[in-house]
Structures are given as C-alpha cells and as structure tokens.
C-alpha cells in the first residue's frame, strides 16, 4: 500500500486555519487550501494513500473517479514542491 510521508526538512503549521509549509530545500512557502489542509492532516496521521482516499470519499460529496483524479493531482503537486515523499511499497 503506497504511503505518503512529509519530508523531514519541511516546517509547517496552521496559519489562518490552513497549513502553511516551508521547505528548507527550496526556500519556498506553500499555503494549502481547506481541503488540502484536511488531506495534509490525514497524511500526518497515517499517510497511507488508500486511507486518505477513503477519508476523502467519506468527508466530501465526490465520486470515486473524481476523487482519484483530484488526489493524484494533489499528491503530484506536493511531490513537485518537495513537501512529501511517496513510498509505493510501504
């Protein structure tokens, strides 16, 4: 089961109700929106992509296909910005 992990060189906290993350590697800030913040909290708690997907389906009025598309795109963004790593084997 694939697992997401927040990289150890990321500093983050909630600012105005959403996660703001700073990367020591890139020197850039990233601010997530409300849903992104919910997903970040799920990654923090467990990180298993299947668990994140299940939680999203339970929490939002969204079909499975849209959920998969949105989640893939969000994970790709987090990876591209160096915020998380994705371990496909974990």
């Amino acid at each position, binding site marked *: 089961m694939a697992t997401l992990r927040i990289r150890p*060189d990321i500093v983050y906290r909630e*600012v105005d109700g959403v996660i703001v993350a700073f990367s*020591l590697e890139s*020197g850039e800030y*990233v*601010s*997530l929106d*409300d849903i*992104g913040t919910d*997903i970040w909290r799920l990654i923090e708690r467990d990180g298993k992509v299947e668990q994140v997907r299940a939680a999203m389906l339970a929490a939002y009025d969204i079909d499975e296909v849209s959920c998969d598309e949105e989640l893939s795109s969000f994970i790709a963004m987090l990876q591209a910005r160096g915020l998380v790593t994705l371990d496909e084997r974990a």
Partner: protein
Amino acid sequence: MRVQITRRGATIDVSASEMKELQRQFHEECCILFKEFVEPAMLVQLQAKIADAGFYDKHNVDVGDEVRMRSDPAGSALEFMMNDPALHAFVREVTGIGPIGAYQGRVYSLLPDTGMMSDWHNDMVAGRLATMVVNLSTAVYSGGLLQFKRVDSDEIVKSIHNTGFGDATLFKIDHSLKHRVTPITGAVRRTMYAGWFLEKPDFMALLREKLDAHSVGV
C-alpha cells in the same frame, strides 16, 4: 516543562508554578536558559543547511566582529518557527513585554583564533522588546560566555555558557544592563541564531503577502 520550536509549530507546556519561576528568573536574573529549545530532529536539518551556507565578515560598530550567514532557507525556516503566535504569547507572559509584531534575527558565528567577540552593549534600539539567542553550534565550544553586568558596575551579575545543542537564552533589554560574549578559546566555532522580539513589522501580515502568490490545493 517543555518550551520548544518544532517543525510542526511551537510546543509550550508550562505549569503555573513553572511560569512563576520563569518570570522570577527573567526579572531578577535578567536571563533564562531553555534546554532543547529547537526540536533535535529539526536542529539536525538546520545545522546541515547552515554548514552549506555562505558567511561573510561583519563588523558591528562598538561591539565587535563576526561572520554572518548570507540569505539562506535555514534563516527563513528559523524565522517562521520563531514567529509562532504560541511562542509570542509565551514570551509576553514570561517577560511582561507589549505586543510582539515579529522576531527578527540572524545566524552568525564567532570563529576561534580570530579574537571575534561581542563587547559590552545593551541592545537598546527602538522597537526591540527582548532578546533571544539559539545555539546552533554543532560541537561544544569553549569561551563564548554570555555575561551580564549593571551599567554602573564591573561586577558580572550573570554568566551563561549556552553550549547545549539547540538551547536558547531569553534575556532582558534594559538601560541598566549590558551584556557581552567573550572570545572563543578553543578550536570550535560558536554559531548562534540571535535576534529580538520586536514591536514591528507585523510578521503575519508579511507572511500573508508572500502566501498570496503560493496558495494551492485540491
């Protein structure tokens, strides 16, 4: 008691009696040492970045020479962590200072065999409310004592050897007090993140401006 800046934000766990003792130390002894103020895992990350960062010579008029880190993500990360509202609220409660707009600091080193030091001075500049200095050194240095005295006396009233990794000192800015850092006596450099809690600028307002261009989500 736990007072720590972590990668997830500041952790402040202080009982009422501990708070009372911190307030007493600050007001009567002018300085408090916080052990492991920087979360150890984050400290390792910061030290690795600082080791790769460039430093330049800096002369501080009437104080002394140092080498100062150039602009680097490690400095920005420290700034983000130090400007946590929970930490500001804690510092205000301990010190009794007014509203904090920001903490601003710089990473600098005193190098061995150079005579680098900070001579007696008082940090008194408009808008500065209190000083905090975090030890980012990667080994235990010798010398480099932080010392305090009254302006009208040569007697050292407090001397702190902040060599614990990630430990921090919080001290008073006052016309009646001066402080200095003695020269390094061994072979190990002394690297600190030093700065002040300030009335302004408003860090959160500046952060929101930066974030406007970087907001992303699902």
